[in-house]
């Protein structure tokens, strides 16, 4: 038996989440005394995975492997999993991995546990801690299935290096049939997405209008951060919906979250509970965000931000 992990790549390079799921997969393989198999799609060079303890890389090739399809990718991973007698599958919390996980669960007759935040406390039966109530609580879940899919919460386990010399093979799997066709993809290039970012800079209604967002963008660019916003900001069209963070928007699990002019409503905080360090800049010392933050500045964003930007430029240059 073996542990399998789906290591996502894009344009020939692995995503950061691939190294995190591989790190977790390695720890799980050690815990259960099994080998770790990584599955890649249309990724000829799997050598980067040697830093994370992978024993075997199976690269799936063939026409369909070039474009993501949840149905086709799930079927292909299921085929590898059956061949390698896999009993534990680890996937990330990326949009694509979360998309295919339930399809894979049906194919493998497996239980699927999403938002997992730690290694299992027991492997028989498999017992996992996961976040729920939009990060306002954790639950402990016990599976009664012999095969299990673990959806790892991003940034919950971290990346741990373990050198190995993986065997690399390629495989052509059967292509699942699907009537679904991707007709176009619109993707911002050159900016970091909230899902991949180590640092997220977020603006709320306190920034008064879209014309002031250059401050948020400049701060983000100095820090190599993604930009985000509160719900009213996206509802009013100041920023795109994809930046809306919170209970009804995106979850964020970055190392650092800087909130500027965001009051800290419970629904906003629900989305950012998993961030490691939170900084708030708000003119109102009574703003609820101060109760949730690690560091705070009571001040006017239009005073504080230009200074912070200048000081950080100097800091980064040093």
């Amino acid at each position, binding site marked *: 038996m073996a542990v399998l992990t789906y290591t996502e790549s894009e344009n020939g390079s692995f995503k950061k989440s691939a190294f995190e799921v591989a790190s977790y997969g390695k720890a799980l393989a050690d815990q259960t005394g099994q080998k770790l198999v990584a599955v890649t799609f249309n990724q000829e060079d799997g050598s980067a995975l040697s830093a994370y303890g992978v024993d075997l890389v199976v690269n799936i090739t063939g026409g369909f492997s070039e474009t993501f399809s949840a149905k086709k990718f799930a079927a292909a991973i299921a085929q590898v999993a059956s061949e390698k007698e896999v009993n534990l599958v680890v996937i990330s919390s*990326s*949009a*694509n991995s979360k998309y295919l996980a*339930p399809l894979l669960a049906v194919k493998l007759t497996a239980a699927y546990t999403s938002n997992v935040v730690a290694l299992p406390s027991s492997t028989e039966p498999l017992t996992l801690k996961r976040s*729920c109530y939009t990060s306002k609580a954790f639950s402990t879940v016990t599976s009664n299935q012999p095969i299990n899919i673990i959806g790892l919460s991003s940034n919950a386990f971290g990346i741990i290096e373990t050198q190995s010399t993986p065997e690399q093979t390629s495989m052509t799997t059967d292509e699942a049939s699907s009537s679904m066709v991707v007709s176009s993809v619109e993707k911002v290039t050159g900016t970091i*997405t909230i899902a991949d970012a180590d640092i997220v800079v977020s603006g709320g209604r306190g920034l008064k209008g879209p014309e002031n967002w250059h401050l948020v963008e400049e701060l983000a660019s100095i820090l190599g951060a993604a930009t985000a916003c509160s719900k009213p900001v996206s509802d009013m069209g100041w920023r795109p919906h*994809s930046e809306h963070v919170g209970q009804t928007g995106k979850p964020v699990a970055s190392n650092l979250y800087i909130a500027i002019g965001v009051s800290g409503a*419970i*629904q906003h905080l629900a989305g950012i509970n998993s961030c490691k*360090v939170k900084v708030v800049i708000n003119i109102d010392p009574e703003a609820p965000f101060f109760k949730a933050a690690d560091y705070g500045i009571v001040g006017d964003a239009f005073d504080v931000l230009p200074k912070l930007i200048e000081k950080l430029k100097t800091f980064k240059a040093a």
Partner: protein
Amino acid sequence: MKILVCISNVPDTTSKINFVESDTKFDTQGVQFIINPNDEFGLTRAVWLQQKQQAEVTVLTVGDISCEPILRKCLAIGADKAIRVDATATDGFFVAKQIASVCEKGSYDLVIAGRESIDHNGSMVPGLVAGMLEYEYITNCISLEVENGQAIAAREIDGGKEIVTSELPLVLGAQKGLVEESDLIIPNMRGIMQARKKPLDVIPPIDAVASSKVTSFEKPAAKGAVKLVDAEDIDTLIDLLHNEAKVI
């Protein structure tokens, strides 16, 4: 066109999250239950399809009698009929089995469920249903048109969106964007009166075993107090983030 919208009964977004019975059960005391927000975006889109393209909209929930007020609310919003599978929603797999069984009997063209519920955050029910029925499946769906038996939808991806076309039957994981917050329908008096007369069928569950069990809940560890830095002393903030928190 027949549409099934799956509805989850969840605590209001402002609810205090507490647990009782040695941390094994959610404390419902003083908690108001609402339609799961992701489901409500899906329901609103379905009601539009009913109004503009004569679709028939059925809402479904798996739960005990305490879920009926939100089903009535869905009827008041505009759904034509409601089904309640009379069972405790033990896990996502069990719920998906029940939904799949209703789908098999009702032959729906579109099955819509929220991409995730705001209580369990399992993000698996629509995908499991699609997998079980071998229907096409699109989640994180932020737009949908149905023309000549074909769906054209947009899926939010990390950093953008993807436009897809698909044959029906199709399962959708709904979220904001499918309709806007301001599009949500607030039931009026007429809708509420009509809802009382619309059918709400209660059916027994099919045999299915949950694949997992929640054994306990816990709350995140209490956080220490915020460290305030003077607005004139940005250097200290940078120093704390660099040397203490080690995040920059």
